[in-house]
C-alpha cells in the first residue's frame, strides 16, 4: 500500500496540506510516539505545512463546511489538491507512490474518485491529525494567536444559524 506522505486538515480558517518528513511507521499508541505528537518542537520535525488555502470570505467558508461535513468535495478543495499534488500524479496511476491522509473516509472516497489521489483514513492518520490540530496555530505561518478561534466563532455561528429551522431572532420565555 502507498505510504501516507501528505495529510489534509480542514480548519475554520482554511485548508491545510501537511507534509510528513519522516516516513517510518510509528507505533501510534507507544509512549515515545505520543511524546513526539504532543511536543511542538518534535512534531514540527516530522510534519510541516506544504500549502495553506485560506477561505476568502465568511460565505466561502460556510459553503465549504456545508459540503465537507457531508463528505463532498468543493471546487476550492479540488483546485487546492490538484495544484499541490497534481505533479506527482502525472506519471499515471501505477506510479503514484504516496497517499493522502484524510480525517473522514467519506471525503477520502470523493477525493479519490474525482482527482485520482489515493486517500487513506486509518489510526496513524487520526493520530497525526490530532497533532496537527494541537499545533495548528503554530504550524501555519501568518496565523496569529486567537485567529483560529475567531474563525471558529464566526463559522460556528454561521453554520449553526443555517442549520436551525426556527427563526433565530425569536427566543422562548423560560418558565421558572
Amino acid at each position, binding site marked *: 500500500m502507498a505510504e501516507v506522505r501528505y495529510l489534509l486538515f*480542514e*480548519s475554520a480558517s482554511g485548508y491545510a496540506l501537511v507534509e510528513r518528513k519522516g516516513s517510518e511507521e510509528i507505533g501510534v499508541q507507544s*509512549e515515545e510516539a505520543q511524546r513526539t505528537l504532543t511536543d511542538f518542537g518534535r512534531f514540527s520535525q516530522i510534519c510541516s505545512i506544504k500549502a495553506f488555502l485560506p477561505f476568502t470570505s465568511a460565505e466561502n467558508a460556510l459553503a465549504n463546511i456545508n459540503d465537507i461535513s457531508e463528505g463532498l468535495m468543493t471546487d476550492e478543495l479540488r483546485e487546492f489538491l490538484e495544484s499541490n499534488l497534481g505533479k506527482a500524479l502525472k506519471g499515471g496511476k501505477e506510479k503514484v507512490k504516496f497517499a493522502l491522509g484524510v480525517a*473522514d473516509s467519506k471525503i477520502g472516497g470523493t477525493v479519490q474518485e474525482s482527482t485520482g489521489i489515493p486517500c487513506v483514513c486509518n489510526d496513524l492518520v*487520526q493520530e497525526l491529525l490530532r497533532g496537527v*490540530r*494541537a499545533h495548528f496555530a503554530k504550524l501555519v505561518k501568518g496565523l496569529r494567536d486567537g485567529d483560529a*478561534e475567531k474563525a471558529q466563532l464566526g463559522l460556528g455561528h454561521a453554520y449553526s*444559524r443555517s442549520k436551525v429551522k426556527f427563526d433565530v431572532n425569536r427566543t422562548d420565555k*423560560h418558565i421558572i
Partner: protein
Amino acid sequence: MKGGKKVIIEPHRFAGIFIARGNDAALITKNMVPGEAVYGEKRITVEENEVKVEYRVWNPFRSKLAAAVLGGVDNIWIKPGAKVLYLGAASGTSVSHVADIVGDEGTVYAVEFSHRPGRDLINMAKKRTNVIPIIEDARHPLKYRMLIGMVDVIFADVAQPDQARIVGLNAHLFLKNEGHCVISIKANCIDSTAAPEAVFAKEVKKLKDEHFKPLEQITLEPYERDHAVVIAQYRAAKKAK
C-alpha cells in the same frame, strides 16, 4: 438578592466559581455580560474596590455541573482559560455559567442537536463571544471537525444510551492527552430496568474501554434522582517505573 451590602462574596476552592453569603449561601459565577440574566436567574451586584461587579446565581437543581460542585467533587477541571467541549448544551443555561468560569481566555464549544433549544443557545452565544455554538449531532463529530481545536475538558450531558461511545468518539478527535471528561449519567436514560448503581458501573467500564481512567464518581442527590457524575482522565500517563 436584595440588600446587596449585606452579601459577602467568597471565592470557591475552584477558580472562577464564587459563593455568596447573605441570609443563605448560593453558588455564583461572575457575569460576563453585566446587566443581563440569561434565563431569569438572580443577579447580585457588589462593590469591589469601588468597582461594581455582577454575579449570577447558579442553581444546582437546574445544572448538573453545579450539583456536582456542591456535591463536593475533587476537581471539575473547568477553570479560567480552559477550552471545553460541551456536549448536550441544550438552550445554554449551564453553558453560560461555564462561559463565565473559563472567561475571555477560555473557549466553550457548545454542541446541541435539537433546533429549538439550539436557537436559544445561538442567542446566548451572541452575547458571550467565548461560546462557539454548534448545532449538530454529537454522534458525528467529524461533521463539526472544522470548528473545533484541541480541548482540555469534555463535559457531556447527552442522556443517550450510547453516551460513553459518543464521548469516546469526540475524545479521540478533540481531547488532549491527559485531558479530562466530566459526564453526567442519568440511569433511566441508559437502562430503565437495571439498578442505577449497576448502570453507573457499566458506563464506567465502557469509558475504560475508550482509554479513560476513572478518577471519581458521585451521585447528584439531593438535586437529581438516580444521576451520577463521573470524572475521568483521557490517555492518562503511565506511572514512571
